[in-house]
């Protein structure tokens, strides 16, 4: 598909470095965990989880995201998607645990909304460096219970999402859905493996995308050659044990780099 010309209709400042952009384009068939390619014309095209059917939530890190942060309501970008495989859709009366770190909230927000709307029970562990970096706290509380953690203790439990997870009985949950920095997700996976729950866990991964449609192989992971853009970005924990996950990834020239 060609990029859909999409006008920014609303910009919400979530934290000093994270903003939500809403568009006049709504990808109504987007499932929680799927992503769009956001074409910041003249700069780059980058993957972003759909945090709403018509919105993305972006952390400013480099060229494309900085240019996006200069944009105003009424400016436009090109959107292609939704692409990839999202989270397993929650069913009524299921018990779902969401673990989100930093901008990892983006694909998990719609999952929490969806789970609550079908009558699943949602519990969220929401982590950030500090209180002002917490995103979607209100949104997750509307879907269920929220346990906040901050690295500096400025809100909720002082520590990491794993500090809260360690105290939990994960056998209660039908599914555990995770997104955040890879090291955080890797520590969660190891903890869940010890508790025998890794095959009930789903992780939304981050790899360098070029084609984003499952052809070029830039995003392939060892040792199964899974394509994060097409077989993922959401992958079951059992697929990630004994993979490169938590260890290394590929740069834009496909060289191995440490996570």
């Amino acid at each position, binding site marked *: 598909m060609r990029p859909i010309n999409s006008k920014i209709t609303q910009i919400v400042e979530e934290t000093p470095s994270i903003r939500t952009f809403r568009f006049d384009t709504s990808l109504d068939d987007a499932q929680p965990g799927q992503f769009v390619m956001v074409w910041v*014309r003249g700069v780059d095209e980058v993957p972003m989880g759909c945090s709403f059917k018509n919105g993305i939530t972006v952390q400013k890190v480099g060229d494309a995201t900085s240019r996006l942060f200069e944009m105003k309501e009424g400016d436009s970008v090109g959107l292609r998607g939704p692409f990839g495989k999202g989270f397993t859709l929650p069913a009524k009366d299921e018990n779902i645990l969401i673990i989100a770190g930093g901008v990892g909230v983006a694909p998990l927000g719609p999952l929490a909304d969806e789970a609550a709307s079908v009558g699943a029970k949602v519990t969220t562990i929401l982590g950030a460096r500090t209180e002002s970096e917490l995103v979607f706290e209100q949104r997750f509380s509307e879907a269920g219970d929220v346990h906040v953690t901050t690295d500096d203790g400025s809100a909720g439990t002082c520590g990491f999402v794993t500090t809260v997870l360690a105290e939990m009985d994960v056998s209660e949950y039908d599914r555990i859905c995770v997104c955040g920095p890879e090291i955080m997700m890797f520590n969660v996976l190891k903890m869940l493996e010890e508790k025998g729950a890794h095959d009930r866990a789903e992780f939304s991964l981050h790899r360098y995308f070029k084609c*984003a449609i499952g052809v070029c192989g830039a995003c392939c992971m060892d040792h199964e050659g899974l394509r994060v853009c097409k077989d993922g970005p959401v992958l079951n924990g059992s697929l990630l044990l004994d993979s490169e996950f938590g260890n290394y990834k590929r740069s834009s020239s496909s060289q191995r780099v440490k996570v």
Partner: protein
Amino acid sequence: MVKITGIEFRNPTILASGIMGTTGASLVRMANSGAGAVVTKSIGPEPKIGHPNPSMVKLDCGFLNAMGLPNPSYADFDNEIKIAKEGADVPVIASIFGGNAEEFVRVAEGLADAKPDAFELNVSCPHAEGYGATIGTDSCMVEAITAAVCDSVDVPVWVKLTPNVTDIKSIGKAAENGGAAAVVAINTLRGMAIDIYSGYPILGNRFGGLSGSAVKPVAIKCVYDLYEALDIPVIGVGGVSSWEDAVEMIMAGASAVQIGSAVHEGVEVFGDIATGIDQFLQNNGYAGVEDITGLAHEVI
């Protein structure tokens, strides 16, 4: 079983270069999904990050891409070939590129230790300045580079041709004269798409290469012409996404077919096409692919 340039393939479908070919593990996955052989991403002398995105878009008629030959360089890639050779029970062909004969030789020698079953010279990428088609449109350079690589390695050398020339036969001849064991045709056709709402060319590199169904008739004609002009085998590539497409390509003169863009529909495409070709041969009383290679030349 198909034998081309002395190498045995379990079936005539081959993974095309640049598709799922940047890691050893992904090459193994393609072999496991049924490919009779796999070709790596084109590897060059230095690490290259490629062009900015968008680097690939699906259009109504096919795909446009301008990856810009991203690759980790031969120094970092020999390990991936080793992984592919260990894990895949099919031949592994190393696609290489360079800006001149010396660079091609440096890359080929650098990868020789990893023991690829053949080298495929990319003198045909349409959108990498100083590489690919810049060389592949000049028959003298094609001959010189082919000869230099053939001298420096002891496995067969295939040369992948660009359709962006007036006369592909003369370039094919140059490859043959240089010692190529086979030619591979075709790489992508130069193309471009523009976003009418902003006026921006869609690809980060502005223009790129067209692949997929749209290029099949062009590829069939190139294979047909090369089959007539050359004594070495022709490997067909461009727009093959079904067994019917593959049979058509073989009848034009291909000894085997490579498959690229069709992986978009699913990695099972290799197994499906190989089975389809087998069925077709059986149903029509042909003993093997050789029986129909170039058939379109004989009937008239």
